[in-house]
């Protein structure tokens, strides 16, 4: 008489625990994750043993639906493992293989116990396959999510790091822009600049676009908005670093930047000093000193 697949799997996991675990350890040992030195064998075995125990318990309580409630703690344990692997820099294959390498030992154990009963063998194998595939995919999903989180965080860090507001002199700020100016970054830029104008009691802010590769109408619009906001805060705004090719392109586009603009940051700074009543002079060297 053939048995229910979940029942077959459950019994096999309980009766053959030692053999399956040994075979699983062996296949994990052969995997690349150990050889890369990112994880120790003892740690790997502890994780494997914990996952195995939870899989056995989940099977005892629930069926083969790995999305079900009984599998919650197992899924969370696997998620933790995947997350730590994503951070440690494991490859996706290594991460997925942690679960998939359990397949061969389990199939072998089912085959050994029910080799003569084709129907039972098929049912048990199918149940094991279904659960382990689902769990393997789950580890991949978590792995990718963690990677995306890392990338997203880096993106935010870059956005903040790449828009520093620099104090050039009392009341004179510079904002060197680098990279693509999209709506999200403009928000960060504007916020940083306006806050710095308040903090530094700035009279003049210089926006330097030397590092912006393409100035299209959207970038121009964002620039104009930033300038307008700074003006509302009582600060004058200069734009500097408009390269020749950008200048020609902007003329053809028909964009009029209604602001004082200078070719280089140095020119803009000199103008800012003049406007705030300062002058840069070369030090007078005495006749004696010159000799």
């Amino acid at each position: 008489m053939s048995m229910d697949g979940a029942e077959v799997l459950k019994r096999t996991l309980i009766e053959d625990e030692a053999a399956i675990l040994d075979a699983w350890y062996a296949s994990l040992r052969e995997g690349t994750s150990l050889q890369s030195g990112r994880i120790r064998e003892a740690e790997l075995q502890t994780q494997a043993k914990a996952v195995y125990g939870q899989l056995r318990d989940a099977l005892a309580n629930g069926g083969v639906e790995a999305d079900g409630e009984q599998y919650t703690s197992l899924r969370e344990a696997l998620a933790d493992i995947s997350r730590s692997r994503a951070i440690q820099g494991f490859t996706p294959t290594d991460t997925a293989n942690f679960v998939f390498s359990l397949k061969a030992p389990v199939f072998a154990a089912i085959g050994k116990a029910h080799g003569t009963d084709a129907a039972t063998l098929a049912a048990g194998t199918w149940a094991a396959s279904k659960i382990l595939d689902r769990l393997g995919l789950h580890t991949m999903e978590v792995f990718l999510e963690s990677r995306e989180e890392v990338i997203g965080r880096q993106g935010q860090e870059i956005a903040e790091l790449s828009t520093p507001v620099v104090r050039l002199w009392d009341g004179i700020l510079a904002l060197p822009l680098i990279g693509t100016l999209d709506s999200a970054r403009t928000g960060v830029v504007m916020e940083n600049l306006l806050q710095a104008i308040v903090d530094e009691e700035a009279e003049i802010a210089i926006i330097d676009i030397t590092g912006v590769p393409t100035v299209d109408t959207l970038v121009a619009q964002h620039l104009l908005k930033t300038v307008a906001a700074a003006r509302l805060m009582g600060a004058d705004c200069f734009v500097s670093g408009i390269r020749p090719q950008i200048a020609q392109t902007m003329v053809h586009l028909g964009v009029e930047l209604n602001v004082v603009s200078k070719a280089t940051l140095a020119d803009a700074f000199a103008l800012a000093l003049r406007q705030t009543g300062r002058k840069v002079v070369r030090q007078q060297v005495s006749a004696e000193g010159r000799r």
Partner: protein
Amino acid sequence: MTVKSTKVETLPIRSGDDVVRVRQRVRALAIEIGLGLVDQTKFVTAASELARNALDYGGGGEVRAEIVQAGMRKGLRLTFEDQGPGIADIEQAMTDHYTSGGGLGLGLGGAKRLSNEFHIESTPGAGTRVTIARWK
């Protein structure tokens, strides 16, 4: 003179990141055909405008980039296509400072001024196709 296209590739325009990718690809192709720095910048800017139009007004689409050759002259041709609501009055849309969104209203006219060839066709309800080309 017959114009033959040698290298054809299609890029999707689905997000703001895609617009950046289109710009980078167009710049690489412009360098490949030997456009000067000013012409590169002009054409990349035109591509940026049209890609963003396809995204913002057309709800996304794609661009086909091809290197074209007519005799000894090489050029770059871009075809932007979207399946958006289309443009009812093209003449009005081409007018500087006219915008149906929140932009400056210079994108279409600017793209025309930045390219050697400009062609636009649009069917309300079916989509818009804009073709631009720049010759070396």
